[in-house]
């Protein structure tokens, strides 16, 4: 009796699987051959449902749990596949072709990659991105830490100051960029005009423009990092500080010998947060300078002096209409970011173990 039931179940399950796969494959074939048949969508859905049902009823005890797990994970895996894995694979493969966004005519191998390294403006872009990252990592953390110290002191109206320092982080980068562009070219120039009779905007020369981006970025990001430092500083146990005070430690000694060592993990987190976000800098860069002004590099006139990696990729692909070149730059960018992220995870894990 029991044997018959499981036999029947087995047949149903296999039948469901077979019919499901058939439906699925047929619907996909129709889709790729450009068919306009209306039943395609329904066929695909029925196929998928049948496959899943077939898997569910598949009479196996050994793999049943695994199958159930996969079915439950399926929606998430599917979304991940569609939004991350497939674009990644497509993107990498496009970088080896001459795809123009419409058609692909030739596979060009590594030509795009050799080309990007012969472009001085791209090398320049990598250089200034690294420069920007270093400057920011130091400045954002420094400013944020000082603000955090200020906000954990016992001054009056601390709630207000915390909110005030954090508030501009809520404004989007594009809006910030345009606001600061106005500040630099309309407000600051008015002041310099009256003071030193010079109305050159900071955004007109490379050095000052680069500095301007850093100012805006620190202004935007320091408030956010400050919040993390405040949390870190609040976790320093009061009895330790009290003990230090009884032992006669000066405020400076308390800061350098007690507080900073105690919040070492926070410093690691903040450093990497600023590192990765500075690497990906795009919106402020786009809105504030859009890559201008010019710079001199290895005897060549670089038109896009402040165009950092992300902006350079965007401009190559969209503005210059060179998709494959932009794509190969993006692959390189991905590799750089992947290395940074792996380092980050490794180092923070190690620190956590130490504590």
């Amino acid at each position, binding site marked *: 009796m029991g044997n018959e039931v499981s036999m029947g179940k087995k047949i149903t399950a296999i039948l469901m699987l077979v019919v499901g796969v058939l439906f699925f494959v047929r619907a996909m074939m129709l889709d790729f051959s450009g068919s306009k048949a209306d039943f395609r969508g329904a066929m695909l859905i029925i196929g998928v449902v049948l496959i*899943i049902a077939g898997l569910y009823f598949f009479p196996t005890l050994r793999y049943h749990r695994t199958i159930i797990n996969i079915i439950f994970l399926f929606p998430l895996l599917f979304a991940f596949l569609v939004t991350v894995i497939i674009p990644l694979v497509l993107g990498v493969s496009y970088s080896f072709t001459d795809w123009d966004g419409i058609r692909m005519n030739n596979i060009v191998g590594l030509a795009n990659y050799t080309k990007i390294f012969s472009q001085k403006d791209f090398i320049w872009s990598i250089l200034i991105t690294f420069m920007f990252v270093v400057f920011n990592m130091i400045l954002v953390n420094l400013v944020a830490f000082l603000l955090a110290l200020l906000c954990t002191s016992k001054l009056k109206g601390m709630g207000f100051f915390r909110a005030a320092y954090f508030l501009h982080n809520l404004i989007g980068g594009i809006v910030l960029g345009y606001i600061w562009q106005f500040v630099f070219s309309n407000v600051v120039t008015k002041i310099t005009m009256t003071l030193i009779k010079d109305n050159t905007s900071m955004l007109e020369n490379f050095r000052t423009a680069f500095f301007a981006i850093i100012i805006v970025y620190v202004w935007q990001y320091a408030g956010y990092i400050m919040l993390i430092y405040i949390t870190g500083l609040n976790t320093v146990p009061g009895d330790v500080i009290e003990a230090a005070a009884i032992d006669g430690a000066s405020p400076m000694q308390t800061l350098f010998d007690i507080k900073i060592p105690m919040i070492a993990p926070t410093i690691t987190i903040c450093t990497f947060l600023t590192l990765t976000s500075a690497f990906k800098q795009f919106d402020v860069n786009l809105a504030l300078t859009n890559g201008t002004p010019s710079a001199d590099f290895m005897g060549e006139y670089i038109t896009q002096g402040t165009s950092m990696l992300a902006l350079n990729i965007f401009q190559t692909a969209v503005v210059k209409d060179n998709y494959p070149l932009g794509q190969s730059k993006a692959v390189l960018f991905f590799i750089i970011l992947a290395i940074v992220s792996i380092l980050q995870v490794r180092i923070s894990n190690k620190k956590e173990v130490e504590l």
Partner: protein
Amino acid sequence: MKKKVLALVLATAMVFGLAACGGGSTGSGDSGSASTGSGDASGSVRLLNGKPEIDEQMQALAAKYKEETGNELIVETIGGNTSAGDELKKMYQADNVPDIFVIEANQAANWDGMLADLAGEEWTNKTGFELVNDSMGTIGFPYTVEATALGYNKDILDKAGVDPSTLTSPAAWKEAVEKIDSQKADLGLTAVFGWCAEPADLGWSSGTHVFGQYLDAGLKADDTTYIDLLNDGGQIDTDRMLHFAEFVGMMNQYSDPDLLTTGTYDQQVAGFVDQKYAFITQGNWCVTEDKGFEMGFAPYAFEDGINTIIAGPPSYWVAYKDGNVDGAKAFFNWCAGDSAQDILVNQAGLVSPFDDCKYEATNPFFKSMNEYITAGNYSGWHTMLKKDGLQNETCQVFADYAGGKLDAQGFVDTIAQVIKNYYAE
């Protein structure tokens, strides 16, 4: 058992939820392809418009089309910071290309073999502005004509005693500009030129339009000497470029210092409309209604005898070969006719490219533009045929020249190097 049932219910619910999402997108895809699939002229036609400022009038045009012919026109508008060319690539990948869409002349190569040949259509007899491509034939329908040169404020020139028709040589320009500059206070001017070389947001103005004067000023509309030279590996005529640079140098010198390197488009146009500048380096699109003074165009006469403005369609509507071509052709013929031109000219403020259009454009620059066009003194928009994105590079050289970092010769050398590198990419 209960647990199992629950698990099953949950699993199916999830699957159906997912399937519903998938089903939704396939559904809309189907409806999209259905409209392109019906090939007869009576079917609906989708048009991708690249000018957001005339979206409302385009909807009125669609309503009129429906009313007069019973055919449906669906207008979709792209613009602002999204470029139509980019959006079209997405639409192509999604198999959702509109039947009619907007392209600029140098984008035709991207669509090689995919656009319908419109040769022999009735409207082609009424205009000389259609876009003709070597491999695909007559592909572009001109929906507007735009002109760019040095726009002037006639009232101010009259008061200053300058006759714009004499501005056809560098010497005459120099004399006129100095004359106006000396009377700035009496005329209420801030500066002679409303010229802005700010590169980050206004690079299209210097890099495409002003640069276009180097390519075309003084040439007949079908003369492609300098654009051919440019597209042949990025070469320039250094003598002509130097003369052009000297002329731009004059504009730099007599422009408003607050506008020149840090200004915005709005600031530039507002200054011209408020009669603070005698000249503006834009085109007929910058002022579309009467502002209480007469306007006109003067040529960029950087060499003796240059007497042309640049006029022509900056972009075109094309018909997608795999779309509803018959429907598109029917629409184009109707669009070249009286009732459509009434809307485009009188409501949208466009300038008609068609000879038999009886409406006088409301655009304040139209009178001057029309004089140049009827006299044959107009050059082509060949600046639209330069390599895509070049304007982003050259605008920076204009900015450095305006900012005083380069002199005229330095401008020529730098722009030559920048162009050469860009074409080598």
